[in-house]
């Protein structure tokens, strides 16, 4: 069985006495070490699906299993990185990174060294003693990435982690996250509404559509690690996604050779 196995998963809310289906009939298998992007417009249930796999808000239909075990609550083996960073503003950068290992058996010194090591990995060791408010958005998100990696998780969930950043910082962080994740061999599930971001990062893109939230299609990205945002292959994958969203004009011959 697959590493993460999702079968007929669905989630309904009752709001103002009316039932609302956020997620319907989701079937998806994810292998260890894969970089998966959940892509779609707002309301397509991509964050709902992510939160369900991460254990924050469980599904009420079907099942989600990780390594054969049903997901029931969040745990330190699967860390989530949020769009608004989730850093604790009253802690220094160093102390934020240590947050997840404070209950471990490591000594104070070992914790400090370990956190510092991961700060170095995201190139923020010089800011160890700064407070989050003194950092830019991109730096904050790198602290959050260091904090997540510090607990040595198997899976990292990212909920539109670069959504609040400017385009250039975002591209830089996309490169960083690709490098870090290939080196650390993590399974990544990444939520985004940015098509290019998904094509740039993912091994597979799960395209989702709203009303009710469901999977429209899964696209394998047959590109190697270092991707060129302007190459023909890149644009072809992007094109396929436009097609799934029915956003492609019929007489579009722009990319034909």
């Amino acid at each position, binding site marked *: 069985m697959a590493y993460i196995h999702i079968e007929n998963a669905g989630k309904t809310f009752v709001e103002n006495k009316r039932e609302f289906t956020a997620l319907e009939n989701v079937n998806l298998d994810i292998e260890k070490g894969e970089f998966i992007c959940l892509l779609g417009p707002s309301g397509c249930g991509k964050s709902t699906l992510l939160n369900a796999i991460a254990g924050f808000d469980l599904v009420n239909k079907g099942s989600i299993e990780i390594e054969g075990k049903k997901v029931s609550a969040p745990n330190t083996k*699967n860390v989530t990185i949020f769009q608004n960073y989730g850093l604790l503003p009253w802690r220094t950068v160093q102390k934020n990174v240590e947050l997840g290992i404070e209950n471990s058996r490591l000594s104070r010194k070992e914790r400090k060294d370990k956190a510092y090591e991961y700060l170095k990995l995201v190139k923020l060791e010089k800011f160890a003693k700064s407070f989050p408010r003194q950092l830019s958005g991109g730096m904050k998100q790198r602290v959050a990435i260091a904090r997540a990696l510090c607990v040595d998780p198997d899976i990292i969930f990212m909920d539109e982690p670069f959504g609040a950043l400017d385009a250039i910082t975002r591209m830089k962080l996309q490169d960083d996250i690709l490098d870090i994740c290939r080196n650390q061999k993590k399974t990544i599930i990444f939520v985004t509404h940015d098509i290019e971001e998904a094509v740039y990062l993912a091994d597979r893109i799960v395209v989702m559509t709203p009303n009710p939230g469901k999977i429209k299609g899964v696209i394998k990205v047959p590109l190697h690690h270092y991707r060129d945002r302007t190459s023909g292959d890149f644009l072809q994958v992007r094109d396929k996604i436009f097609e799934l969203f029915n956003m492609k004009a019929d007489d579009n011959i722009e990319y034909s050779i």
Partner: protein
Amino acid sequence: MKKVISLKYVIVSLLILIGIWQLLFNISSYSPALFPSPLMALNALIEMITTGVLIKSIATSLGRFAIGYGLSVASAVLIGLILGSLPKVFKYVNPTLQLLRPISPTAWMPFVVLLFGIGDVPAIVIIFIAAFFPVLLATVSAVSRIDKVYYRVSENFGIKQPQLMWKVIFPAAFPQIASAIHLALGSAWIFLVAGEMVGATSGLGYSIIDARNNVRADILLATIFVIGIIGLILDFALGLIEKRILRAWGGSV
């Protein structure tokens, strides 16, 4: 430089106050024994300092204040953190709090004196009541307004109660709690005087009553002045502590 400028404002402001006082003294037809001049009040102040009466009153009042205010803030924050984390329980407690809150602490005085007699306790109780409700309600609201993402992060990293309380909930709510504690200091100091006027035979509040009974308006006004100065110093000192903690916790003050 900034300090010098603000000192200038303080001096001018006080001079205007004293000037108006002197003017009223000059044009009033009251006997100087009932409505003394600023100079007479100053002489009374010097008399109180040299005889040691003043320092004794201040020590007594500050002692009561420290106990009443300290107990009040500590219990209000503690109960507030717990009630804030249990919104369903708070729904049952809130109506009672809203009923008790608008009652002036002085209204409890006769009852407190009946129960505990004249002495330290009535003043301490009144200070306790004065600071308790605002700090409690501010703490509950601060906890209920904590960003949900902090809870998710804590849950994710396996931080559970009681660690959650002091690692996340308290520091996240602290800025709002601190400003309520600061505001409550002022009202607690105000009600200390009321408490000592009714329920004690020592302290600054009692000095005022004592001065009235002896028809010493100069001592009465000097004592009022001292109460104001101490209130100002307490406020300033607490402000410094508050800033220090906020800065240590990454605030931008």
